[in-house]
């Protein structure tokens, strides 16, 4: 099948307006006859369900959590970008568009990204009207901050809880429609299968996680707003329940998976402390404004620290290696996420890592504390203040800036970052890859749409900070509600979709058999045992640095793991009733298949770009070498039965409005 992105012709800045004007409308009377299923209630799902219901469609929304408000969008910290130019610093829609394309290392689609930048402004207006309490200055107007190394201040925020406030805003819009009876909400329900009738997505099989019952739900269109798949690595900053099942079931039914190997590994997370750790916690990127990253310059010092014989404060300045400042003098500690992550890994692999695991580096605020303390002493007019006085003053300044993060760090690690350097290490955070969608956000299965992190469309090979929230709400509030019309306008005479068709019967039967198999398997190992092993393979071979040999090994290892999983997994309890272990088994089964496809995608992409770094493709100084001549395309994979034997379809990326350049931070 030829991939048609359906990006409208014409001038970049006019495409979306023109397209909106040309999408056939569905009359209010006909909207009442059309049903839409929305799976997932994060920013994309809640906003889409609310908007579609307001327009008059009948919406059913599903989430696996006990309430739609718990979706993992809630955990986003930093902020949301919008090209409002309230700070009068030269921001514009075009600049946000350009920054996003460049930050994505030129692997995203111009048309989609420009639309995202255009609607970013509406998001802020909308959210404020809904009562989202963004940070304000003393004049009562909205405040902004800088983020992610761009040169303007366009990030709107609500302290360190921007995701929470935006999600609760979308949740309130959703609640309003639930109260009106326009949305029927199914919490503690998980999608188990996509039902395709006559080549169109016409419903889902959902499991009621409380009763264990399987339910058939039909609709004229299905929207997957199910987030990313970072949990394929077991340890990530994702929530425990985040999973790929909905997207993967759609993939198995014909939806292509695009750029699955593009994973964002965030440089500043709290390191792994032991084998029993279940998840990783992010420390905001903003810390790199003041923290200096280093490891010991001498291997014996690193070893002494690891065995607890040496304290970092006792290492003299000249024996410390501030490797980011050394390698990237122009950007120093503020290089982009992918570059900072790889540099940390390089030092740890070379034997200079700290922490008992050897997989951590220092993020040190001592210099910042003394610098701020000196400034404060000057302001206060203190003559010849002692180091102790300066330090105390400096700690106060740092506390005002980062107090909540320092406190969170101390709670988790029991170490005081004012007194000794923080330990950090990169962790899986976001997945740029996802279901392939066209300009209308429709997958290759007609009637099946993907929104938010679940699709691949806007961030290319690397996402900029504060852009995930922007994309989720753009897709849900302002894009999908229009673009579904193009598909649904052909459906006004279809009538209600029956759930008694052979297609629904077969889909439900397949789900029942899968479930039954887990319960009767009588294996010997828990689901987590396999999930952790999958995570190790993925982290070691498909993580921050990849090579041909490792990727081939990963494919073989994952295939072997899959066989072992089905032969030996042990799920206790019954199929009917609440059984979280059983639900987890289904999710891990799909993550195993996805992991294999990610390795395959990484193996076939013979270049380094954004979050995808192939060791074979780097400069003499260890920098990423992108290959625009041969790889300026989206890899869209068609399922054929075995993930590693998926068919590759290429969507060539054409850049008419930006010039492709090498990113350099030296």
């Amino acid at each position: 099948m030829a991939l048609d992105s359906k990006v409208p012709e014409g001038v970049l800045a006019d495409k979306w307006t023109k397209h909106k004007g040309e999408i056939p409308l569905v009359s209010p009377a006909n909207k009442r006859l059309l049903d839409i299923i929305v799976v997932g209630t994060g920013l994309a799902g809640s906003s889409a369900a609310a908007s579609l219901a307001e327009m008059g469609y009948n919406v059913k929304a599903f989430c696996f959590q006990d309430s739609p408000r718990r979706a993992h969008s809630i955990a986003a910290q930093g902020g949301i970008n919008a090209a409002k130019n309230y700070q009068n610093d030269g921001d514009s829609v075009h600049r946000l568009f350009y920054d996003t394309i460049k930050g994505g290392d030129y692997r995203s689609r111009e048309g989609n990204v420009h639309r995202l930048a255009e609607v970013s402004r509406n998001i802020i207006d909308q959210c404020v009207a809904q009562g989202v309490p963004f940070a304000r200055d003393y004049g009562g107007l909205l405040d902004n901050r800088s983020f992610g190394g761009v040169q303007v201040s366009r990030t709107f925020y609500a302290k360190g809880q921007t995701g929470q406030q935006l999600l609760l805003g979308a949740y309130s819009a959703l609640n309003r429609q639930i109260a009106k009876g326009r949305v029927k909400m199914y919490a503690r329900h998980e999608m188990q299968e996509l039902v395709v009738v006559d080549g169109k997505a016409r419903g889902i099989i959902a499991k009621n996680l409380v009763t264990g019952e399987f339910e058939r739900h039909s609709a004229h269109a299905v929207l997957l707003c199910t987030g990313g798949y970072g949990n394929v690595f077991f340890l990530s900053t994702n929530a425990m329940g985040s999973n790929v099942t909905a997207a993967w079931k759609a993939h198995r039914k014909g939806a292509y998976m695009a750029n699955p190997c593009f994973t964002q590994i965030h440089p500043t997370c709290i390191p792994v402390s032991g084998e029993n750790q279940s998840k990783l916690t992010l420390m905001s990127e903003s810390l790199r404004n003041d923290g200096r990253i280093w490891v010991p310059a001498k291997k014996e010092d690193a070893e002494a620290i690891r065995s607890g014989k040496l304290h970092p404060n006792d290492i003299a300045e000249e024996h410390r290696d501030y490797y980011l400042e050394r390698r990237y003098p122009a950007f120093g500690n503020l290089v982009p996420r992918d570059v900072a992550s790889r540099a940390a890994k390089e030092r740890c692999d070379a034997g200079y890592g700290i922490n008992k695991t050897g997989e951590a580096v220092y993020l040190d605020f001592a210099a910042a504390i003394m610098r701020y303390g000196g400034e404060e002493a000057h302001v206060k007019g203190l003559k010849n203040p002692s180091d102790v006085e300066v330090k105390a003053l400096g700690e106060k300044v740092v506390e005002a800036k980062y107090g909540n993060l320092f406190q969170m760090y101390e709670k988790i690690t029991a170490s005081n970052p004012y007194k000794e350097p923080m330990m950090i290490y990169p962790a899986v955070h976001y997945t740029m890859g996802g279901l392939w969608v066209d300009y209308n956000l429709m997958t290759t299965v007609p009637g099946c749409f993907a929104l938010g992190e679940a699709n691949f469309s806007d961030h290319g090979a690397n996402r900029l900070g504060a852009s995930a929230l922007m994309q989720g709400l753009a897709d849900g509030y302002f894009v999908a509600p229009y673009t579904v019309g193009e598909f649904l306008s052909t459906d006004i005479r279809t009538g209600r979709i029956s759930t008694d068709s052979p297609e629904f019967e077969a889909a439900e039967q397949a789900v029942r058999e899968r479930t039954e198999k887990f319960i009767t398997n009588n294996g010997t190992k828990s689901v987590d045992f396999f999930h952790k092993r999958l995570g190790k393979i993925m982290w070691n071979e498909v993580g921050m640095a990849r090579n041909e040999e490792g990727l081939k090994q990963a494919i073989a290892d994952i295939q072997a793991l899959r066989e072992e999983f089905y032969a030996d997994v042990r799920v206790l309890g019954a199929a009917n009733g609440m059984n979280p272990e059983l639900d987890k088994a289904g999710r891990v089964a799909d993550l195993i298949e996805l992991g294999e496809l990610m390795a395959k995608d990484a193996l076939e992409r013979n270049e380094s770009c954004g979050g995808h770094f192939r060791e074979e493709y780097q400069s003499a100084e260890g920098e990423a070498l992108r290959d625009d001549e041969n790889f300026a395309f989206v890899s869209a994979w068609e399922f054929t039965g075995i993930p590693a034997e998926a068919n590759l379809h290429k969507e060539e990326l054409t850049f008419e409005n930006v010039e492709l350049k090498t990113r350099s931070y030296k």
Partner: protein
Amino acid sequence: MDLTLKIWRQNGPQEKGEMKTYPISGVEQDMSFLEMLDYLNDQLINEGIEPVVFDHDCREGICGMCSLFINGEAHGPGRKVTTCQLHMREFKSGDTIYIEPFRAKAFPIIKDLMVDRSAFDRIQRAGGYISVNTSGNTIDANAIPVPKENADKAFDAATCIGCGACVATCKNSSAMLFASAKISQFSLLPQGQPEAKERVLNMVHQMDLEGFGNCTNTGACEVECPKGISLENIARMNRDYLFASLSSNK
């Protein structure tokens, strides 16, 4: 660390539950409380015992999914933390730890430590929103200035994670801290004014329908709230409620 866990086990909403004892060893100080339960569950599975069911998701203190009454306190002994942020270094080897679900009439038990908090969603649906369609064609965001002090207070109220610790802690199983947080957020903002009276009347009515009790100003909810939501919000809600009751046309 070696611990003795006393955990509430209950197979379903209608079945009788009981405290069961599980000795556990090899617990590390760096584990979070929920990781300790993961570790227990892994052992139980190996022994052929059904794992303990509990709610959890983000494990960074923001989704509000985790609960648990630990040694008689919602979210355990820490202050301003959720159970997922509680670490085992708060306990010492040899301790006996009692783990129960959040108990309230309006929070029926689903299984073991998992309860049904959908009553909270229904309170929100009764008025926890501003009626504006998502067209994107509202007025420019900066056309509505909000005094910083009010904006900050609205934000503080809006940080409620809806976990239900306030209800579980309250001797009256009152949801007034929860409901007042949302009512206050909108009450403090100009956008919330047109519907303010109806909102407070409807949300309080729904709270009563769900079977939550009333506030008698003990203040335990504020102490146990992982987000430090202030009692001031309850006072504001009561004031708004009184005003609305006396002046509403409905």
